[in-house]
């Protein structure tokens, strides 16, 4: 039973961190590839390196501090953040799936970044390339750090969450290098929707635990919550798809 609970909780945690990291790293990689192609790879890699160092320092600095907060308070705070964050992801994914918001287009981001960088001159030490690559990786990575810190610390599996994020980043980088500019073929919206569902499920679960609710089936309740949110999201997409633009009915 205990082993079953640990496996369920860990599996959901690994899946959530993997998908969240993959989605954000695809976005970051698009920017880095655009910078590298347009301005050269040296400054782009320096920007990436510094961003990764800063992100690692954030996890190393805040991670152990979070683990010192009493578990119920931590779960309530983290659960609230995950709920809001997850609902924002789900809302965007539903609007994109139902055609009310443009889908995230990696090709367009690539073209925009290339166009912006091509206009500027190209000095020996390219600070524009450095800053663009740094910002791209740091800002996208910050969402990964928050996901890793919140999910990892509340489940007391910070090391597991961190390793999954690192492994996913490496995987996305390798795949990204191999496919270069075909990043737009990644089913980003479906991945975002899955992450949204998992974050909201964890958020609900931990808010409940933080407030003293003992879920039926313990950690297995996470699977029931995820199933409920998947069905709910799917129904909302169907309803939204049948509404005319402007919402008038």
């Amino acid at each position: 039973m205990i082993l079953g609970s640990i496996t369920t909780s860990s599996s959901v945690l690994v899946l959530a961190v993997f998908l969240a990291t993959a989605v954000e790293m695809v976005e970051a990689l698009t920017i880095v590839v655009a910078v590298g192609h347009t301005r050269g790879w040296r400054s782009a890699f320096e920007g990436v390196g510094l961003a990764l160092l800063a992100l690692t320092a954030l996890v190393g600095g805040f991670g152990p501090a979070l683990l010192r907060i009493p578990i119920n308070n931590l779960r309530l705070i983290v659960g609230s953040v995950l709920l809001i964050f997850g609902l924002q992801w789900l809302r965007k994914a539903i609007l994109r799936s139902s055609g009310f918001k443009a889908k995230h287009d990696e090709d367009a981001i690539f073209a925009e970044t290339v166009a912006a960088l091509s206009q500027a001159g190209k000095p020996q030490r390219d600070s524009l390339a450095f800053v663009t690559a740094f910002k791209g990786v740091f800002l996208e990575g910050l969402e990964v750090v928050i996901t890793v810190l919140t999910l990892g610390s509340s489940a007391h599996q910070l090391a597991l969450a961190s390793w999954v994020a690192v492994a996913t980043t490496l995987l996305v980088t390798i795949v990204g290098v191999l496919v270069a500019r075909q990043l737009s073929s990644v089913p980003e919206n479906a991945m975002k929707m899955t992450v949204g569902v998992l974050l909201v499920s964890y958020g609900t679960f931990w808010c409940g635990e933080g407030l003293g609710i003992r879920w039926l089936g313990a950690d297995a309740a996470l699977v029931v919550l995820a199933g409920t949110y998947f069905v709910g999201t799917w129904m909302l997409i169907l309803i939204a798809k049948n509404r005319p633009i402007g919402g008038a009915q």
Partner: protein
Amino acid sequence: MKVITRVVKAFGMFWWNFLVGDTPELFVSVVALLALTALFRAGHARVLMVALPLVILAVLAASVFRAIRRR
């Protein structure tokens, strides 16, 4: 001193954009929902287990249709 003020301001802005941003309704609804849950949790744990996810879905639906109406 100026640097510290700038860092604190940037930190505050980051969390404001992260949690509130263009969906204040989600932030307010989640905070209100958790406050209500804290008030009524005693003796209602079973009901809350079912009600909590359903109310959260209703909040999501309201936010989605608010966005659609504004387009």
